[in-house]
């Protein structure tokens, strides 16, 4: 394994029941970089994150994080590794029965013996980093979608992880929150020296902040490159995705019998 690579995915195959989702994916994430995994909905992007986090085990191939093969770890080893990972779920997944402060303090209280004074300072520092120190005493139900996402980000970085995974961090955000979230991902990656894996289908926002992009389609990586390379790509799938065209390699119509047959044109109606 290359020392610079924090995450290495080698020939990974995975399926839900009989339905194959990933059919031989290879991907690496270098330390200190923001990596985007893009592709249309249901192409297996979130499954990839779950494989890296050890919530799923690959059918074939190997997923390595910091040199450890995730699929082969027992629960204790997996939990030790997860303490060095943070994950931002699509809608934040904040614990709704406790305050913003307690959400961010959750891991610190579970995994450290720090006194409450130190926890308070750490939590306020993390919340300050995402601009929500003033919202510490609010309950998750009182937050907007963008604020909830930022609190979840503060919670994800509470233990200073080496890897943060983001599942659709831009979904359903207004343009201001979109920019704020994108900048936060970039800034936190640089200042904390962590590695970020962003699963998204928001092309324009992610092209601004990422170092390297992987395109997933039908279970394989169909294209990869830097933002400039992806913008200039003439691969039909990448072109359709980046420019948001309705029809192309990804068809507009769900597979169906011929239109004329469905409308029974040319046949005598009873």
């Amino acid at each position, binding site marked *: 394994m290359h020392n610079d690579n924090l995450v290495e995915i080698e020939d990974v195959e995975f399926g839900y029941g009989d339905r194959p989702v990933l059919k031989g994916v290879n991907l690496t994430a270098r330390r200190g970089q923001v990596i985007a995994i893009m592709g249309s909905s249901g192409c297996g992007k979130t499954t990839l994150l779950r494989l890296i*986090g050890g*919530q799923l085990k690959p059918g074939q191939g190997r997923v390595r994080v910091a040199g450890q093969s995730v699929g082969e770890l027992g*629960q204790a080893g*997996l*939990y*030790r590794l*997860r*303490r060095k*990972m*943070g*994950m931002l*779920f*699509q*809608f934040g*997944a*904040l*614990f*709704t029965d406790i305050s913003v402060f307690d959400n961010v303090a*959750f*891991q610190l209280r*579970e*995994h450290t013996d720090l006194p409450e004074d130190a926890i308070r300072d750490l939590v306020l520092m993390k919340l300050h980093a995402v601009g929500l120190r003033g919202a510490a005493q609010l309950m998750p139900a009182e937050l907007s979608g963008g604020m909830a996402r930022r609190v*979840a980000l503060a*919670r994800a970085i509470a233990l200073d992880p080496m890897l943060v995974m983001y599942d659709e961090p831009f979904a359903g955000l207004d343009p201001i929150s979109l920019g704020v979230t994108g900048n936060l991902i970039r800034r936190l990656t640089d200042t904390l020296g962590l590695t970020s894996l962003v699963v998204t289908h928001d092309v324009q926002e992610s092209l601004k902040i990422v170092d390297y992009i992987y395109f997933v389609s039908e279970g394989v990586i169909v294209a990869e490159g830097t933002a400039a390379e992806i913008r200039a790509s003439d691969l039909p799938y990448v072109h359709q995705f980046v420019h948001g065209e309705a029809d192309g390699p990804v068809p507009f119509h769900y597979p169906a019998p011929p239109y004329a047959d469905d409308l029974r044109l040319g046949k005598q109606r009873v």
Partner: protein
Amino acid sequence: MPTTCDWENSVFKRSIENLGNRTLQAVWRIGFAARFFVAVLLHSGTAFRRFGLTIREMYFTGVLSLIIILVSGLFVGMVLGLQGYETLQTYGAEDALGILVALSLVRELGPVVAALLFASRAGSAITAEIGLMKATEQLSAMEMMAVDPIARVVAPRFWAGVISMPLLAALFSAMGIFGGYLVGVQLIGVDEGAFWSQMKSAVDFEQDILNGVIKSVVFGVAITTIALFEGYDAPPTAEGVSGATTRTVVTSSLAVLALDFILTAFMFRGLN
């Protein structure tokens, strides 16, 4: 004779397949429930080491169920007082009203009715809460933070339910006896001395009170296990959670009644 094609498409074949699938699913689910129960027991350390977590859940399952338990207990006791007096006075045995009210409550009605109320009040709430935590990925988030949801979320709720249930049943019986006293002694005029002294001499600690406590502990285990399992196994959708909540109330109510019969059969002394 049917051709292969007829057999492939026949309604008969599909219904057999359907029956087989349902049976497999049911067996798989029972197995999963058993493994879930064992996992909860094995991961109960946190619930006792950090007893504050269990106390917090006892507030939600036990203390917040108090109103419905106490009011229902009072009314059940009052009805027992009225109905009991009606029957006993036919035989001139109205002084035995205290015995009738106390034994009915301590042996049967206390544990059973309190358990049925507990299943609908606290059981449904537990299922909905766990189901929604799963649907909103809170349990996944906890796993990703290297915190085991079975130890941190499920086990404290389990023990809170198991501890709360006998306490609620005892309070139900106490309120019921008070209700029987109000109607029998204060309203109808049964002799107060006879009411209490006959009750005191007839109710046996081991055979009546302890058996009632055993019943309520068993009901507590059954209801909280069903409620937690249904929530944990609920499909992460609105219909999934609502279906799981309904199943909790139906399954745990039936389980309470069935277990009551089995336990009563073991505790029965009438043939000796």
